[in-house]
C-alpha cells in the first residue's frame, strides 16, 4: 500500500480587504524558483485590483488608526506569533525564492519574525519619542503628536522576499496607516503566505492589502491615485522612479525614495521609515480659568 499521494496544489490569490480574491482580470503569471524551475502561478493584479485595494485600505483606515496603540501592538505581536508557527514553510519558500541556503534562509525568517516583534513594541512609543509639548511664549498649552498619514502604497523590495517585505510593511501600519503593497514581482510566494498569516492574526481586513503582479504596471496607478497619501518607492523599477515621483506630485504625496545603495535588511531599521509615514499634528489651547 505505498500508493503515491497526489499533492493538493495551492492557488495563489491576491489579499484585498481581508479576503483572497483572484485578479478581476483573470490573469496569472508563472513564478519560478531561484534556479528557474516553475513553482506556481500567481495572480497578476490589474489596475482595477489596485483600485479595489485602495478602497479597502481607505475603508480600514478609520478603525485601524483609531485603535489604541496597545491594541495595534498586540496585533503586530500576534503576527510574529503566527509567523513563528509557520517558520518552516517560510524557510522553504525563502530558500526557493532567493536561493538561500537552509541556515541563511532560517536566519532571514527569524529576522522577519523578530522585526514584527520590534515594530510591535513601537506602537505605543512613537508619540512619546517623536511628539512634544511645545513651550510656546504665551498663555497656551501646545502639544504635537504624530499621526498616521493615511493610505500608503508600498512597492516592496524585489530581492528580499520576506524580510524586506516585512521591513517595509510593518513601519507603515505600526502608527495606524493602512497599506496597499505590490509584492516582489519575481518572488511573490512568501508574500502570499504572509497574507495568510496576516489574515489569521487579528489584523483587521484591509489594513494590509497585498497585490502580486507586475510592479511597472501597477505602480503608476497607485502613484497617481488621489486617495493614496504616500508612496514608498523601495522596490520601484529603476527606470520608472522619476515618472512615479512626478505622478505622486499631482496630489502632493509623501514619497519615500528607493535607497541609493541596496538596503541591508538585516540591520536594525531605525525610525526613518516610521517617520516617513507620519504627520505631525500641533494642537493649541489657551490656559486660563
Amino acid at each position: 500500500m505505498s500508493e503515491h499521494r497526489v499533492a493538493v496544489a495551492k492557488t495563489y490569490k491576491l489579499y484585498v480587504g481581508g479576503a483572497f480574491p483572484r485578479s478581476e482580470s483573470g490573469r496569472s503569471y508563472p513564478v519560478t524558483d531561484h534556479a528557474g524551475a516553475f513553482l506556481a502561478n500567481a495572480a497578476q493584479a490589474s489596475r482595477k485590483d489596485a483600485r479595489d485595494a485602495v478602497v479597502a485600505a481607505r475603508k480600514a483606515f478609520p478603525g485601524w488608526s483609531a485603535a489604541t496603540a496597545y491594541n495595534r501592538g498586540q496585533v503586530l505581536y500576534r503576527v510574529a506569533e503566527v509567523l513563528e508557527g509557520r517558520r518552516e514553510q517560510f524557510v522553504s519558500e525563502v530558500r526557493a525564492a532567493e536561493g538561500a541556503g537552509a541556515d541563511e534562509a532560517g536566519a532571514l525568517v527569524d529576522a522577519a519574525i523578530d522585526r514584527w516583534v520590534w515594530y510591535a513594541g513601537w506602537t505605543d512609543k512613537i508619540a512619546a519619542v517623536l511628539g512634544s509639548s511645545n513651550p510656546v511664549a504665551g498663555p497656551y498649552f501646545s502639544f504635537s503628536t504624530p499621526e498616521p498619514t493615511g493610505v500608503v502604497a508600498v512597492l516592496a523590495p524585489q530581492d528580499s522576499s520576506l524580510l524586506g517585505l516585512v521591513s517595509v510593511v510593518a513601519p507603515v501600519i505600526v502608527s495606524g496607516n493602512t497599506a496597499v503593497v505590490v509584492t516582489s514581482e519575481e518572488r511573490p510566494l512568501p508574500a502570499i503566505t504572509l497574507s495568510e498569516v496576516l489574515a489569521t492574526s487579528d489584523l483587521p481586513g484591509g489594513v494590509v492589502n497585498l497585490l502580486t503582479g507586475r510592479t511597472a504596471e501597477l505602480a503608476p496607478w497607485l502613484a497617481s491615485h488621489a486617495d493614496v497619501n504616500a508612496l514608498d518607492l523601495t522596490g520601484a523599477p529603476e527606470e520608472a522612479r522619476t515618472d512615479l515621483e512626478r505622478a505622486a506630485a499631482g496630489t502632493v504625496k509623501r514619497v519615500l525614495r528607493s535607497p541609493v545603495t541596496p538596503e541591508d535588511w538585516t540591520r536594525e531599521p531605525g525610525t526613518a521609515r516610521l517617520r516617513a509615514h507620519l504627520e505631525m499634528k500641533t494642537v493649541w489651547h489657551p490656559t486660563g480659568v
Partner: protein
Amino acid sequence: MTDHTVWDYAPAPESRDLANLKPAYRMFVDGEFVEGTGEPLKSINPGTEEVLAEVSTAGPSDVDAAVRAARRAHEGPWGSMRGSERAKYVYRIARLIQERGRELAVLESLDNGKPIRESRDVDVPTAAAHFFYHAGWADKLSHAGFGPDPRPLGVAGQVVPWNFPLLMAAWKIAPALATGNTVVLKPAETTPLSALVLAEIVAQAELPPGVVNVLPGAGDVGAALVGHAGVDKVAFTGSTEVGKLIQGQLAGTRKKLTLELGGKAANVVFDDAPLDQAVEGIVNGIFFNQGHVCCAGSRLLVQESVAEELLEKLRRRVSTLRVGDPLDKNTDVGAINSREQLDKIRELSAAGEAEGAERWTSACALPDRGFYFAPTIFSDVHQSMRIAREEIFGPVLSVLTFRTPDEAVAKANNTPYGLSAGIWTEKGSRILWMAQRMRAGVVWANTFNRFDPSAPFGGYQESGFGREGGRAGLEAYLDV
C-alpha cells in the same frame, strides 16, 4: 454729550523714514551686494501704488554663482565649524533683528501692505524668535533624536512667499543655519526688500561669505534655484499649484524636499462656545494679514443653533475693523499685496455671489489709492461653491453650518488641503475628540493663528509635507 461723530481714531502713522528706504537694492551673493544679470524689478507699495525701490534680480548665472558660493561656504568654514560657534552667529542675527525691529517693521508694511501693528507685534518679533530658538539647537543636535551625529544636507535652496516676507525667510534660514546648511533664498517678486535687509543683518553679524545668499526675482529664478544640480535641499512655501510643479521638477533627483502650501481651513464653532471670544478668533482667523495667510480660517462652520446669533455678532465686530494705511497704528486691515491678488479676490467674490451665497461687506471707508478690499462675509455657503473650496487668500470669509459633531468633521475634512483647523467649544472632551479627527497639521482650539518657533507647523495632504519649528522641524534640514 452723545455726539458720536466727534469720536474718531487719529491717524497714528509710523514714520516712513524709519524704513531707511534706499532707491535701489541689490542681490546678496557670497557676502557681497552685487548687481544681478536679470531684469531689475520695481517694488510697489500696495498701500499707495507708488514705486518704493528698484531691485536687481538674478539671472541664471547668478543662481549658479550663489549656489557655488553656498557650496564653498558649506565645504569651507560653515561645514567645519563647531555647533557652539555656529550657534553664536545665529544668536547674533536674532539680536540684530530685534535692534533693527522698527526699521524692519516699517519696511515690511511698506513693501507688503500689512498693518504696522502686525509687522511690529507679530512678523518681526516672531522672526527674531525663530533665530533665537534655532540658534540653541546648533550645538545640541545630538540630543534631537536623530542619532548621535546628524549631518546637514548641504546647500538649501529656499523659496518664500509674499505674505510674511521676513518671517518666512526666518522660518527657512534659521533652522537651515542651525543644522549646518548654507542657504540660497529667493524672496517673492513683490516683496524682496526685508529679505535684503536681513542679508544686511547677516553681513553685519559677520557670517562667512556664502553662508546666506539672497536672490530676488520672479518665478523663473525660483525654478532655476530649485532645479540647480548643486542644491541638496529645497524648501518652498507658497501655492499648492507651484508646490506640485516643484515636486514634479525634483522627481528623480535626491534633493530633500519640504513644502508648505495652501489651505482652506475650517473654523468650527459649537453652540457652547465662548461666543465673544469665538468672534475675536474668527476675525483674527480670516482678517489677520488681510487673509493672506495659508492657514487662514477661511471656512467658518457654525452649529445651526447659534448661527444667527454668531453671524450678527460677527458682522457687528467686523464693522469696527479699520481698513487703510498700513503704517497707521489704528489700522486693522491693510492693503492687498498686489493688483493681481486683488483681482483674484474680486473674481472669487463675484463667483460667490453668482453661485448664490449671501454677501455682506463692511461699510468701512477705503482709501482712494492703493489695493484695498473691504472685509467680506459670505453666508449661506455650500460645500459645492468655489468660495468654499478654493483658497481666496484675502479678507473673505465663507460661512457654512452644521448640526452634529460628525457633520462638522466631515465638512471640515472635505478638502484636499489640510493645513490648519479651529475648534470653539467649552467642552474639553469634545475639543480633543475634534482635534483627533481634523485632518490638519495645526489645530487651534479656542484660539486661532498662533505661531511659535517651538511649535511644529505644516500641512497634511495637498497643504504640503515636512514641518517647520520645534524639534520636528529640524528633520527637514538633516540627512536622517
